[in-house]
């Protein structure tokens, strides 16, 4: 947002967090305010103590928190409230994005050309053969689903876009697809690590992102983040965030969501009603993203499988932190003519009800229902934290259901599911950890006699489910036979990753990377296909 509006938003966030904290003090135990501030001071002081960086920003932070600690000692009630305001202002100031529509337009126009030319240098002969028409990046991004409906919702209210999250590439692919279908710039929280490069930072800011420091875990920072997102929604800024909270570690589609940010849509809606805003509606749009290969798959699955059981929530030193890896990945996509599927789901209201093409909420029987009536008490819209938390759970369930339905099965997922079934049948192990221990470094299966029949069984399974509307298929999977699907998947699996997932050796398939087999099968877990694959393998 523009700098002057950014300042207004910061002050609004300060006002609301202060009011909220002071209101909750009536029922909170004595000393709750001091405890909240102390918690923030303690966590920030500890975090900065662990920071090695001595740059200007870190020094300024250290100075701020030192002063806060001093002010906290012997502070009166009035001084505590003032200190609370200053801390919230500090955090909100760190978060707030800058946005320049001119830079946004420039970026949206120029980035695809850069990518297109850059990618085509990987295949200059192909580029020359296609001249004067340059292949377009757009070809590799398949955007489908309720696109027209989503565009319409943007005219009728404010959008909260909630995509699945597999890769840091998601911000780029979803952001690009949103612009491509005609949505205005999305406001979204991006990890601080994406702002360390000054050039990238410039573009990130001007593409609508705001900075989120996931190393900050204290309660006050989370409140400030939520309030910031809420205020931007109320001001009509379409928002994006990943309700799964982090990238899927095992490749599976999200089943449990972080409801805190998801609930900001409802909070913003009630505020809009109370202020009599002309277009108060907030529309939540689930968006499912599917890749043949995932940039950071190796690190993610390794994290998932860590013996100590505790996965790292924030991973910074993975494949996405390397520019070379990014380029290699994108080159790979291009050379394989690989597609990324981005499916926009049916928009929902903040209560999880689907909406029609006029933006009206629909009840379970498809009748229009007034969404205001969910939040009325004695005829007035009111906030009610307990009630709204339950509504947000309902919304979360509806989003997860949409993710499942719109999840697109790809050839790599099909082959990985078949391979896992074969490994299960061979080792007799169904427990993941026991299975992975039992599997040898290179497990070999006869393509014709073993792999194709199980791939066929999995294909049959995904097609049946797709016909019932339980998931989607990449178009070609509808008609390709097992041999073709396997060959295409092996083309993908044989490239990019350090250790190929699986390779063909003569008449055999050799599984080389069991962890990645687990990862790529993950996208089709939870549909009952695992059991069908294992059963088909057992019948051989």
């Amino acid at each position, binding site marked *: 947002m523009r700098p002057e509006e950014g300042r207004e938003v910061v002050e609004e966030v300060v006002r609301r967090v202060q009011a909220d904290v002071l209101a909750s003090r009536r029922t909170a135990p004595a000393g709750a305010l001091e405890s909240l501030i102390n918690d923030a001071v303690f966590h920030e002081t500890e975090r900065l103590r662990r920071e090695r960086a001595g740059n200007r920003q870190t020094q300024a932070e250290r100075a701020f928190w030192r002063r806060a600690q001093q002010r906290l000692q012997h502070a009166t009630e009035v001084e505590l409230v003032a200190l609370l305001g200053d801390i919230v202002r500090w955090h909100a100031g760190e978060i707030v994005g800058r946005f320049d529509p001119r830079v946004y337009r420039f970026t949206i126009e120029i980035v695809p050309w850069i990518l297109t030319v850059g990618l085509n240098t990987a295949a200059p002969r192909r580029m020359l053969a296609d001249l004067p028409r340059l292949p377009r990046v757009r070809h590799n991004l398949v955007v489908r689903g309720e696109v027209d409906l989503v565009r319409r919702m943007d005219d009728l209210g404010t959008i909260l876009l909630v995509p699945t999250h597999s890769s840091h590439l998601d911000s780029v692919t979803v952001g690009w697809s949103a612009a491509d279908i005609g949505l205005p710039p999305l406001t979204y929280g991006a990890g601080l690590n994406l702002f360390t490069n000054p050039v990238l930072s410039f573009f990130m800011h001007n593409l609508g992102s705001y900075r989120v420091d996931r190393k900050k875990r204290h309660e006050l920072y989370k409140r400030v983040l939520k309030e910031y997102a809420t205020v931007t929604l109320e001001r009509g800024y379409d928002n994006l965030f990943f309700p799964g909270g982090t990238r899927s570690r095992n490749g599976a589609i999200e089943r449990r969501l972080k409801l805190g940010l998801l609930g900001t849509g409802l909070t913003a809606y009630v505020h809009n009603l109370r202020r009599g805003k002309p277009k108060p509606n907030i529309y939540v749009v689930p968006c499912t993203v599917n890749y043949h290969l995932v940039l950071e798959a190796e690190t993610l699955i390794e994290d998932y499988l860590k013996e100590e059981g505790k996965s790292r929530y924030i991973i910074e030193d993975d494949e996405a932190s390397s520019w070379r890896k990014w380029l290699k990945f994108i080159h790979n996509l291009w050379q394989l003519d690989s597609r990324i599927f981005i499916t926009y789901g049916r928009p929902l209201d903040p209560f999880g009800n689907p909406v029609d093409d006029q933006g009206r909420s629909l009840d379970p029987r498809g009748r229009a*229902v007034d969404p205001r009536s*969910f939040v*009325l008490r004695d005829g007035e819209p009111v906030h009610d934290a307990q009630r709204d938390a339950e509504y947000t759970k309902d919304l979360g369930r509806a989003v997860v259901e949409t993710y499942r339905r719109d999840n697109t099965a790809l050839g790599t997922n099909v082959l990985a599911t078949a391979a896992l079934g074969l490994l299960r049948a061979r080792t007799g192990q169904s427990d993941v950890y026991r299975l992975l221990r039992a599997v040898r470094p290179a497990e070999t299966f006869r393509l014709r006699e073993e792999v194709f029949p199980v791939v066929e069984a999995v294909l049959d399974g995904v097609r049946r489910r797709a016909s019932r509307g339980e998931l989607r298929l990449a178009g070609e999977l509808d008609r390709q036979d097992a041999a073709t699907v396997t060959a295409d998947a092996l083309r993908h699996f044989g490239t990019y990753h350090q250790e190929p997932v699986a390779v063909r050796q003569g008449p055999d398939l050799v599984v080389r990377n069991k962890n990645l087999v687990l990862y790529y099968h993950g996208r089709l877990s939870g549909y009952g296909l695992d059991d069908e694959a294992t059963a088909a393998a057992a019948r051989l």
Partner: protein
Amino acid sequence: MTTSAPIAVLGPGSLGALLARLVALGGQPVAWWGGEHAPLLERRARRRGERDAGTTLPPEVRRCATPEEALGSATLVFLAVPAGSLLDLARRLGERLSPDRLVVHTAKGLEGPSGRRPTEILAAEAPARRLGALAGPYLVAEVLAGYATTLVLGSRFDEVHQAVHDALATERIRIERTHDVAGVELAGAAAVALGAAAGLCSGLRLGSGARAVLLARARQEALHLGLASGASAETFGGPAGLADLLVATNDPEGLGYRFGRRVGAGEPVASVREDAEARTEALRALEGLRTIARRTAVPAPTLEALRDILVAGAPPAPTLDALLRSGS
């Protein structure tokens, strides 16, 4: 939160009338729809000693000819109909059960072979989202006679808890609150089903030991079904569960008990079912519990056997003999 808007009670017979009476005695405006079958239900109620059923309500209770009229502008709505009638009522009212209303049902039971619980029926048919299930070990006659009573309200929403408390709680009537809606409904269904099972044992003149084993096993199976459906064990062990079960299995005048006793005594199931006065929610509850058992893959041989006898007409004695001998 005490609502100034009227409270609507939709439901025939003694329970609907009781709720309307209690709300009125609490000083809140109430509109009551007694249903089309009031005379039949009033006869039943009189037989059970509920002499006041529907006939001597306080003047503050506004009697309505239709459920739509009773609904009016009420913010709190009690649906006091059996589980088997809930779908029809929910469909009839449809969008009138709007999201700004708090809707509480009193149906103990399940829809039948679908296995749907009452709140699931309401969620599928109506836009209202703030739902509640009112259950517990109460007998209408005892409440009318002034005995101390505990009701259990299961709802995800604290607003619903507060509204029902404000409407019904007195010195003699205590409302226990829980967020475990599935538990309240499934435990209630189990109580209804096992009421019929207790009657069956009585009709068969089974000994106390055999009766106790049968009921204990069935209850255990119902508990496992509940846990598999997300309910909490605590609910099954509390007033909505064990206490209600004790009432249902020791109430010889209960509809389910009498049904089971007639079947145990040798009457064919089909002929007992034809008797309108013998209609019981126990049969639907047994059908529903069987469906849930199969859906959740939870073994429930005792409940299945009870269903086979009381619904499908399997010979009672040999079926129970085989079950008790199998030790499962």
